[in-house]
């Protein structure tokens, strides 16, 4: 147990057991399709229904179903990445406008969620570049929690996290302290089902660089969580 975790801070265990699929996936990350097997049956059914509507030319119905199914996921990703509710909402609208326009050309080489996260990651990257003049985190020392930025002003208190457990809340807070590029890499790595190759294509960054970013982000997150008394 790290020293920080021995303080009076409440201790929450990350109790969720490592699922077989996710736990086992670590050793086969370079295989593009491996992570897709973790797609839930419900999500597969959603995708199939949306694509069927699109194939029948019911463009509006397909778009509505797509937005209902994945609107919150895309919003959450953009919000976690950019930490600005209005910007995240605006980006969600742009992502779905682009996706709905291109839905008829979607060939099913990935899940719709993966496809949407690919688009969203690009739009978030664009937005990050646009806001490049806004001061960001200082250069990041991967293994020193002291190097992690102070929590941004109202993050994550500005979120409606009523539904979050204390564990998730702590994780949101720690994610918010990561530099943008590390946060995007680790969110995409664990939350999008995109392969490194796909992430690389979307973000214009080498796969090895993305792997290195994940390798820097995870120990920092672990230390941050342990410092908050969340046992991993």
């Amino acid at each position: 147990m790290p020293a920080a975790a021995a303080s009076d801070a409440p201790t929450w265990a990350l109790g969720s057991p490592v699922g077989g699929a996710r736990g086992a996936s670590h050793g086969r990350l370079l295989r593009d399709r491996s992570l897709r097997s973790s797609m839930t049956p419900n999500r597969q059914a959603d995708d199939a229904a949306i694509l069927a509507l699109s194939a029948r030319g019911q463009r509006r119905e397909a778009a509505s179903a797509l937005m209902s199914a994945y609107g919150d996921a895309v919003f959450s990703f953009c919000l976690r990445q950019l930490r600005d509710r209005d910007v995240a909402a605006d980006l969600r609208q742009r992502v779905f406008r682009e996706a709905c326009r291109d839905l008829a050309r979607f060939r099913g080489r990935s899940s719709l969620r993966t496809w949407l996260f690919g688009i969203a990651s690009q739009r978030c990257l664009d937005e990050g570049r646009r806001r490049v003049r806004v001061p960001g985190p200082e250069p990041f020392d991967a293994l020193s929690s002291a190097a992690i930025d102070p929590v941004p002003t109202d993050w994550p208190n500005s979120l409606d996290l009523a539904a979050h457990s204390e564990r998730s809340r702590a994780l949101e807070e720690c994610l918010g302290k990561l530099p943008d590029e590390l946060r995007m890499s680790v969110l995409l790595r664990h939350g999008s089902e995109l392969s490194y190759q796909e992430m690389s294509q979307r973000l214009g960054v080498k796969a090895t660089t993305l792997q290195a970013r994940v390798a820097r982000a995870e120990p920092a997150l672990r230390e941050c969580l342990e410092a908050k008394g969340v046992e991993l």
Partner: protein
Amino acid sequence: MSEPSDDLAWIEARERGEGGEHPRAAVYARLGAAIAELPEIAASDDGWQRAVLDELDRDAAQRVRVRTALDRRRAVVSVVIGALAIAALGLLILRPDPPPPVEPDLAYLAGRGAELRRTEGTVAVGTPLAITARVPFSGALWIYRGERLVLRCPGGDGCTVRSLPGGLALSAEVLTDAALTYTALLVVGAVPPPTGVLATDADAALGAIRETLTIDVH
């Protein structure tokens, strides 16, 4: 317990699919799962779906307008091209056959103005000669004073050329200023340009000479 730098190296290897045993392997697996399972954050429904659908409708309407305009333009272009093609085809079909090349013909009149008259190959010194010829487009008229070329037509001074269906009408006026024989050669086809000497030119153009006119001036 491993050092943090070990963690970084191990995670990087794991992400390359090469990760082996590590004391914190399970910890990082749980961390990854926790990130993956972060709850979605619901945004307030500010009518964003309606806005996206409206934008899609506007895009679709715009595409229809553009496509309609393009279709109209394509239709106009197609009609114009079709009309031009039909016109070209009509021209090809209806174009009259080219006139046959004119038959070579060579003649002369002696005198001037109202005194122009036919003669039988002899004229007095000082009598102007009006030599006329009809030739195919490849024809030419060469006029010699004795052995020397004095006029080539078309191309020479005192030569007039008029177009005919299938050829040219040539006319030249020559003043007979010495008691010599004046010779006109009408040549047709590819011949070497005249050298200026009658015998040489006649030999060179032997196969191409269609008509010859000889006028003795005394």
